[in-house]
């Protein structure tokens, strides 16, 4: 039995030594610093050409321009995108707001054209414009003079007659009392102009408030004289 015993012992010793070696090399590639001396090397388990160990040559992909050129280019692209989106946002908002405003046909309907040659001197005409009455008076020279004679500083709502008319002989104003919105009566009142019957406001021949509760002068609408003897309100 002796030879068998020695044979088995030598077998155990050999296997233990062969089993131990990979354990040592495995320890060498671990991060343990104990075995990291100058003699330890990394052994690649893969055979053949070792492409993956080489650092590739990136010089082909590196920028050939100086860095400032690339910087300007990228900032230019960022800025161009910002500019285009800013223009787009502005135009979007503008179109939405334009959509809400009155269209051209509505605006055309909102104008009123008056033939002035049919209105004699010293006469009032009341027309309807956007649901409100508009007074048109062909004033005489005496009335214009009277309107200009008034001391502006003494008025409740100081306004010169020349600021209220485009042509002195034509007075155009909204016929809505500035107090509570009644329609004043023409050629009445203490000042030869308009008189509001609701609460007794007196307006003069230029439509300015002179007496009574109203706080402001009668309002002047936008109007124009495109031709002689023609008036367009609106």
């Amino acid at each position, binding site marked *: 039995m002796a030879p068998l015993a020695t044979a088995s012992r030598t077998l155990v010793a050999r296997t233990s030594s062969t089993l131990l070696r990979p354990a040592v090399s495995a320890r060498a590639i671990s991060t343990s610093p104990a075995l990291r001396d100058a003699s330890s090397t990394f052994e690649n388990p893969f055979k053949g050409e070792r492409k993956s160990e080489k650092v590739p040559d990136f010089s082909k992909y590196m920028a050939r*321009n*100086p860095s*400032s*050129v690339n*910087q*300007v280019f990228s*900032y*230019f692209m960022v*800025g*161009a995108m*910002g*500019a*285009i989106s*800013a*223009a787009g946002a*502005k*135009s979007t908002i503008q179109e939405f707001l334009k959509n809400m405003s009155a269209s051209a046909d509505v605006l055309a309907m909102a104008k009123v054209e008056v033939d002035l040659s049919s209105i004699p001197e010293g006469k009032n005409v009341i027309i309807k414009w956007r649901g409100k009455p508009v007074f048109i008076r062909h004033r005489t020279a005496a009335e214009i003079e009277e309107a200009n004679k008034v001391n502006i500083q003494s008025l409740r709502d100081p306004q010169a007659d020349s600021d209220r008319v485009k042509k002195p002989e034509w007075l155009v104003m909204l016929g809505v009392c500035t107090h509570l919105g009644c329609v004043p009566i023409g050629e009445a009142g203490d000042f030869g102009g308009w008189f509001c019957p609701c609460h007794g406001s007196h307006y003069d021949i230029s439509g300015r408030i002179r007496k009574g509760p109203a706080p402001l002068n009668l309002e002047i609408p936008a109007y124009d004289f495109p031709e002689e003897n023609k008036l367009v309100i609106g």
Partner: protein
Amino acid sequence: MAVPVRPIYDFLFRKNYSMLGVVFVSAFAFEMFYDTTMNKVWDNINRGRQWKDIRHKYAQEEE
């Protein structure tokens, strides 16, 4: 590159407010350019069909 790149960068892009100003000014310029170009394209597509193209046929008869 013959373009002096560095001064462009320093002048236009380096400060945030100058970059923002450049962006808004160029947005304004771009919008004008784009609008006129698109109007020209539209007029070119609809040539002879708009009122301003055929106005002379009718406006003379009135006068």
